[in-house]
């Protein structure tokens, strides 16, 4: 366990170096969140009765989504891992006494959390200070906040477990960049990255809420905003745990099979 922690720390500190880029990123993300909320405001004004979530829920959803973009969005792939697989550097990693899946998992966690942390504080600060109705608010109760934190951690796990599956399938296909984009966009769309799941047409929404993607950002964001609370939240967290276990198991299985027949590219 100690070696994973060491790896995590190294990666984390490395990612924290990119401060200037993070500062610019904050402005970008803030502007993005701001515009998305304004768009939803326009739709709300068009037909308030048909709006499936409380407007304050949507506001909180979008701000927290922007704040923790690096955590929730599948498309923040670890390019290093893709390179390692396609360049053959993987051979070096394999001789080390560390489980590959765990190593990559720890690396991904560190990278995403570091990136998110760098940007989160400024975005949150501003989001708490803008005039209502665009203002972010805290969850209704301590329990809600606690449930959010649990759901957040699980969501991060599910996102990474999914990316792990994308990485390991590269062993078999050396998949082109396009395929990774499609895999990420599909996941992010069904996770509620483009529009929150309650805005989907009924039938599609019901199906989507059961998929693993809903366990990525849909659940934590809706728990924070209060859209899902109490028993519903606990059931949602249960579903997240289920998908986390399934995706991790699947990822490990494919990796083990792939390593059994790895073909190293290049010398």
């Amino acid at each position, binding site marked *: 366990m100690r070696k994973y922690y060491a790896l995590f720390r190294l990666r984390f500190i490395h990612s924290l170096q990119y401060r*200037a*880029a993070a*500062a*610019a*990123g904050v*402005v*970008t993300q803030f*502007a*993005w969140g701001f*515009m998305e909320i*304004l*768009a939803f405001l*326009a*739709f709300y*004004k*068009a*037909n308030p009765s*048909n709006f*499936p979530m409380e407007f304050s829920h949507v506001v909180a959803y979008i701000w927290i989504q922007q704040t923790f973009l690096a955590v929730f969005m599948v498309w923040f792939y670890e390019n290093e891992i893709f390179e390692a697989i396609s360049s053959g550097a993987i051979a070096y990693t394999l001789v080390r006494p560390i489980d590959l899946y765990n190593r990559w998992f720890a690396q991904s966690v560190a990278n995403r959390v570091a990136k998110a942390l760098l940007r989160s504080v400024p975005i949150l600060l501003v989001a708490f200070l803008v005039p209502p109705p665009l203002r972010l608010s805290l969850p209704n109760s301590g329990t809600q906040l606690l449930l959010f934190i649990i759901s957040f951690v699980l969501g991060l796990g599910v996102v990474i477990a999914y990316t792990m599956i994308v990485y390991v399938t590269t062993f078999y296909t050396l*998949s*082109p*960049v*396009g*395929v*990774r*984009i*499609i895999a990420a*966009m*599909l996941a*992010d*769309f069904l996770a509620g990255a*483009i*529009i929150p799941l309650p*805005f*989907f*047409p009924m039938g*599609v929404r019901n199906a989507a809420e059961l998929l693993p993607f809903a366990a990525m950002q849909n659940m934590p964001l809706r728990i924070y905003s209060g859209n899902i609370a109490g028993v519903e939240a606990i059931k949602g967290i249960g579903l997240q745990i289920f998908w986390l276990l399934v995706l991790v198991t699947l990822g490990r299985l494919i990796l083990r099979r792939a390593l059994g027949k790895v073909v190293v590219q290049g010398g």
Partner: protein
Amino acid sequence: MEYKTSFFFTILGQFTVSFTSLLGIWFLFSRFREVEGFSFPQVLLCFATVLMAFSVAECFGRAFDTFPQMLSNGAFDRVLVRPKNVISQVLMAKIDFTRFGRLLQAVLVFIYALPRSGVVWTWDKVCTLILMVVCGCIIFFCLFLTYAAISFFTIEGLEFMNVLTDGGREFGRYPYSIYGEDVLKFLTYVVPLALFQYYPLLYLLGREPSLWYMFAPLGGLLFAIPSYCLWRWGLTSYVSTGS
């Protein structure tokens, strides 16, 4: 073009990215009949115009994305000693045809939206639409040029320009008026994206009969002046970082 499969999948990937945007709009409109008086096909007109203008500009303009690197590793010096126009050299190095994924999508959306938008397609309306796309393309290209120009002065913190390029495209999926008065003013007087997307749209839909609205995109072309000036300024004050 050697990596045919890769090329195909990248185009498909680009297509998927704009497709998810489109899907989002579709879902929202299946629930809300209209927004700010604009119906679904009318919003699609907007979406397709912006997408088409952006994807053509991007084919050439994305080369500027790597401009900061060219500056910092000294590759730009090589460009300077060649007896050819600087801008065309930078662009030709990285023409990117994979952007055709977005262009294809724009075409498909136009095919769907044009007959359903309620626009009576007389000659003046057709001209307006062409003006919108062509001028939009030039304005987006100027934004890419501005990005490169700014990188002469600072490498750090360029990411905010992204709000205007990729942001301009994403937010442009709806008429810029829905974001409120202040945003519309900014996008009219500071970065004239609304001049090619919103005001001529009003003319197309017959809401504003004045010809000023039809020719608004040409006003947007004025943006080329500050963009190009900034580029020249950056170029002349460029002191190589050495190789």
